[in-house]
């Protein structure tokens, strides 16, 4: 069975599932009547806040539901199998590229490229399997499958079960289109499609206004990015005459376009526009604000779309266009800078959040920032590597938090958690692994990727030490806030009301097994990308780099690294990053496990003596704004405010501006444009009366008019 020829089927399985669900699902899954009655006076609808009435609803709704539960994950499993097969066969090919073109999709008309070359727009229904997309489809199908399974448990109580799975499958379809497309336009299809699905899934609780708002926000903000994408595509197209990856890369590789190291040229513009699209989709500054709000959606959605797959599309796209970015160093710098800034910003915000999912959301943003830093540094394979590991542990963390929320019946505020580790042990243990991984503890997936990124930044030819520093600080923060989350959630004394505490129960296996799987992933996934430094390990441990080498033209600068000095530094940096991570964890432990005593002690001792020491002062600050009720003050609050006021404010301001202008134009429309017309017709109507008044009814007036007419004629004659 030739999987390579069948790669076009991979997206279709989920699509089939989706279509089935959306057309017939309603029959399979009878709605409980309470779904309909949603008027203010009546009882709140199912799941309007998490799982409140879930128990009221009771059983899962019988055979139909079971069928759905089998069908939807089944389709994804199929694609997973096909992907595996295809990738396996791809490995067999010498050139590691396989393209399947089904038919021409958009066949534009003739036109002329900038160079005056006649061209003709053509975008196929074509699928491209190369190492890069191979990694992506594996990640996508794999993670999606796991999350599908998890959702069977998690969404079991929800109304619109079929709808949820329909959307989810649809999402998988679009995501696979995105990564499998062989041209930018088709990629854009997936790009928009996942945006749509994210809109639908965020707004899944569409009776919840906040959810609907969030969905809209996500879609519109993304649209801004997409505009950039479209323009970039058009530009690319008017330069190269094609949007097929292979053609474009060929053109770029052909050397007809020199590196635009001096000033911004066409290519830079192209790269920037595409990157704008990426920032939208991958929630980078300034377009990242939609992602935290997107947490309104069901947790599996957050895990799949807003952590593992969709938000990484931007990274994928940049990696896809790596040749372009290689030729535009300025833009690469911008990419790195934006990534760095976003990473720092969001990490620092994550420090002070109390909503468990929001912490994870900001963490996701900052991790994406990491990936972009890597891209900017030209280490595309590392970016993809981080993308891959991140998929595991972030999905794990989200699902874990989901399991917590599930256990607590919809509670998301960490300040009301605590001391859960014995009540939901599996969740706790798996999340423990995830937290270690993201913190970058050696041996776990996160460590390898993050450390590689740091190293790439440090060793970048142009020596981006500043960015490196930012990345390092971010790493520390990451460790800190993740462990703050862990401690607040699982350790210490329970802060939950007793009666609800009694109800806390571990999730069913259908939810815990995925957690375990992902935990294993987060633990081991990194071992295929160990640093070159660890030369004592066989090359097999660096499979990932070698695998991607042909697709991303990784520069084999390895030899230079053999210098002892370089090696020394690298060991040093590795140690540093680990140390930083540990420090973060330690700090968190310090402040959240043995809080009361330390707090009081520091309060008392607070004085010039300690303030001299930055560290202590730093601690003091954190202390301070953690224990003044709620969000706290100081830097964290400042940052939070920055987010709310400035960035969001920017968005809202824009919205306000738009509304203003639009009402202005309405005014203009009714009073000026239309008004002119109305005035005209009014005048015409009015002018009817004077004309009539002449018609006095006295025949002698009429005669007089005749004479006057004659007189006028004579006058005209004489005047002439």
């Amino acid at each position, binding site marked *: 069975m030739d999987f390579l020829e069948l790669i076009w089927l991979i997206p279709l399985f989920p699509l089939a599932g989706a279509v089935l669900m*959306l057309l017939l699902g309603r029959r399979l899954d009878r709605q409980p009547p309470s779904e*309909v009655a*949603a*008027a*203010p*006076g009546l009882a709140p*609808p199912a799941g309007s806040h998490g799982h409140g009435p879930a128990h009221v609803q009771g059983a899962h709704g019988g055979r139909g539901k079971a069928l759905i539960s089998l069908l939807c994950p089944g389709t994804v499993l199929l694609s997973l199998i096909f992907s595996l097969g295809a990738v396996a066969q791809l490995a067999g090919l010498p050139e590691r590229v396989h393209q399947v073109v089904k038919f021409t*999709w*958009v*066949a*534009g*008309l*003739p*036109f*002329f*490229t900038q*160079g*005056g*070359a*006649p*061209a*003709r*727009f*053509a975008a196929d229904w074509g699928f491209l399997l190369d190492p890069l997309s191979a990694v992506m489809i594996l990640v996508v199908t794999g993670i999606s499958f796991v999350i599908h399974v998890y959702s069977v448990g998690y969404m079991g109580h929800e109304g619109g079960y079929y709808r949820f799975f329909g959307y989810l499958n649809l999402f998988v379809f679009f995501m696979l289109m995105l990564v499998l497309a062989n041209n930018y*336009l088709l990629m*854009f*299809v997936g790009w*928009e*499609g996942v945006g749509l699905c994210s809109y639908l899934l965020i*707004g899944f609780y*569409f*009776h919840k*206004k906040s959810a*609907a*708002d969030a*969905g*809209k926000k996500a*879609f*519109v903000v993304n*649209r801004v990015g*997409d*505009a950039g994408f*479209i*323009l970039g595509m*058009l*530009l690319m197209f*008017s330069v*190269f*005459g*094609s949007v097929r990856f292979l053609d474009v890369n*060929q053109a770029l590789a*052909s050397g*007809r376009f020199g590196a635009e190291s001096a000033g911004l040229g066409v290519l830079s513009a192209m790269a920037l526009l595409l990157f704008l699209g990426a920032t939208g989709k991958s929630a980078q500054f300034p377009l990242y604000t939609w992602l935290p709000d997107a947490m309104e959606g069901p947790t599996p959605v957050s895990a799949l779309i807003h952590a593992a797959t969709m938000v990484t599309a931007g990274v994928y796209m940049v990696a896809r266009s790596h040749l372009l970015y290689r030729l535009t160093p300025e833009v690469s710098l911008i990419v790195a800078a934006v990534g760095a800034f976003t990473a720092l910003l969001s990490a620092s915000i994550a420090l002070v959040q109390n909503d468990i999912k929001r912490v994870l959301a900001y963490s996701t943003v900052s991790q994406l920032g990491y990936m972009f830093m890597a891209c900017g540094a030209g280490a595309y394979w590392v970016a993809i590597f981080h993308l891959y590991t991140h998929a595991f542990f972030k999905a794990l963390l989200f699902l874990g938090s989901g399991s917590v929320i599930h256990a607590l019946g919809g509670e998301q505020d960490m300040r009301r958690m605590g001391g859960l580790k014995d009540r939901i042990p599996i969740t706790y243990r798996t999340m423990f692994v995830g937290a270690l991984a993201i913190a970058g503890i050696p041996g776990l997936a996160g460590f390898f990727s993050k450390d590689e990124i740091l190293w790439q930044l440090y060793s970048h030819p142009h020596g981006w030490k500043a960015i490196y520093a930012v990345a390092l600080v971010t790493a520390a923060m990451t460790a800190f806030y993740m462990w703050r989350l862990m401690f607040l959630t699982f350790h210490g004394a329970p802060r939950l009301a007793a009666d609800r505490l009694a109800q806390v129960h571990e999730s069913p296996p259908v939810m815990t097994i995925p957690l375990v799987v992902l935990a294993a992933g987060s633990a081991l996934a990194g071992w295929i990308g160990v640093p070159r430094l660890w030369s004592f390990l066989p090359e097999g441990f660096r499979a990932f780099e070698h695998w991607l080498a042909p697709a991303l033209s990784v520069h084999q600068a390895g030899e230079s690294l053999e210098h002892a000095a370089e090696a020394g530094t690298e060991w040093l940096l590795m140690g540093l990053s680990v140390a930083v991570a540990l420090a973060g964890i330690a700090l968190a432990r310090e402040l959240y496990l043995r809080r009361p005593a330390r707090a009081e002690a520091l309060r008392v001792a607070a004085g010039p003596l300690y303030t001299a020491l930055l560290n202590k002062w730093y601690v003091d600050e954190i202390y301070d704004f953690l224990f003044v009720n709620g969000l706290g003050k100081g830097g964290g609050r400042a940052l939070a405010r920055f987010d709310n006021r400035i960035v969001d404010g920017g968005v809202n301001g824009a919205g306000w501006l*738009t*509304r203003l202008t*639009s009402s202005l*134009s309405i005014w203009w*429309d009714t009073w000026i*444009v239309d008004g002119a017309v109305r005035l005209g*017709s009014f005048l015409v109507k009015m002018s009817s009366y004077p004309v009539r008044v002449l018609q006095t009814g006295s025949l002698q007036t009429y005669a007089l008019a005749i004479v006057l007419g004659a007189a006028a004629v004579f006058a005209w004659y004489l005047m002439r």
Partner: protein
Amino acid sequence: MSEHLLSLVLFTPLAGMLVLLLIPGSRKNLIRLWANLVGAAGFLVSIPLVLRFDKSAGGFQMVERAEWIPSLGARYIVGIDGISLLLVMLTTLVGALAILSSWSAIEERVKQYYAMFLLQQTGMLGVFVALDFFLFFVFWEVVLVPMYFIIGVWGGPRKLYAAIKFFLYTLAGSVLMLLGILTLYFQHFRQFGFYSFEIAELMKLDLPPGLQQWVFWAFFIGFAIKVPMFPFHTWLPDAHVEAPTAGSVILASILLKMGTYGFLRFSLPLLPKASIDPLVVQILIGLSLVAIIYGALVSLMQQDWKKLVAYSSVSHLGFCTLGIFALNPNGLAGSVIQQINHGISTGMLFLIVGIVYERRHTREIAEYGGLAHVMPKFATVFAIAMLSSAGLPLLNGFIGEFTILQGAFEANRIWAAFAVTGVILGAAYLLWLYQRTMLGQITNPKNLRLPDLNLRELAVFLPLIAWAIWIGVYPKPYFEVLEKPVAEIVERVRPDYFRQAPAAVAGLEVLR
């Protein structure tokens, strides 16, 4: 029959109307049934056009010519090229569906209603197939009257104002257009010694640029009012809001296209020098861009569901004119495809408004909300319509907008940049509309028991949805159909366009 296919298509609705007049007005259901049969027949007889149409052939096809008024040189000449073909198909299909959609909406004076509709159908088809300027003008005017009545008799509270406004605007424009036509007509006489209205004949004219400019603006008034382009658009919201559902559907889906079609068929080929004049192009592009953004902004703030859709039309038609005056193959082709798309999407949106209006008799967006709970099918259909209108890939809207942008980009990147903002805003106001009406909780008890779509209503939507998806997923045939006519127009307006380099081939050979 085969050689009179077009005439058959053209006059089927008229014949149907004449028969309809014989049915006693009291037998409403019989009348409805008959009208629907005629509508369906109109669509069926138009299908052979597609089958017989030869993509590869240039010029006009299935041409029929007959003497009509020799002493004026006016002939009955009909024929289609790719552009007309698409528009004709749109007309026959949407027309039939519109008739179907008004089965329960129209209760009194049913007979007159359907009679007007069928008459109008013939008028619109005539506009798209006429190859004789006189014939064209006659059909162009014929369309006005039924629409006046459809708005003025079966419309909403301010129907009379809206109807006469529509009528006067369009008439004023078309009379000026007539003067333009006559100028060409007379010039032709002076140059060739005989009077003719035939497009092919008028094409041979060689006019001084100055005169072309005058005639161009005369045409412009006529067409721009119909489109409507920016400063002339104010009749549109009124007409749309007051018209009965089917009326708005026809108005938006087909009537507006008469204007853009006029630009494509007459302004550009007959007045190439004027159309390529930089000032003219800048003005028209400027107006188009203003229309795109302006329409979007205005619809963003509308409280009236139907008015919102109406203003969105202004925005979408802005795209069409933008594409036309990009004056390159992609722009033109995109414009035509976008016209079809707008016909489909906006048609659906109006039908959607009509359906809730029929149930609730209000168009205040604030009155609705959370309908998705009670009308899931409806919500799905609405979602598809909205997305296709917002230009989501795999649905029709995207193809059109993208191709237009492509053309605009080729002509001038700034234009494209401006136009793209229209795409963003489009998503904004449509999604917001969807959210305000469909999502959230049902805040209005009146909406608690709304019935979902029934079979007839579904039957109205399905063909359109299918078509939308077809264009979205496999638009290639449309481009093939349009290639020749568009190339001819470009050849006419910019004779040197295709001479920049040897015949267009897949772009990369040169790069290699």
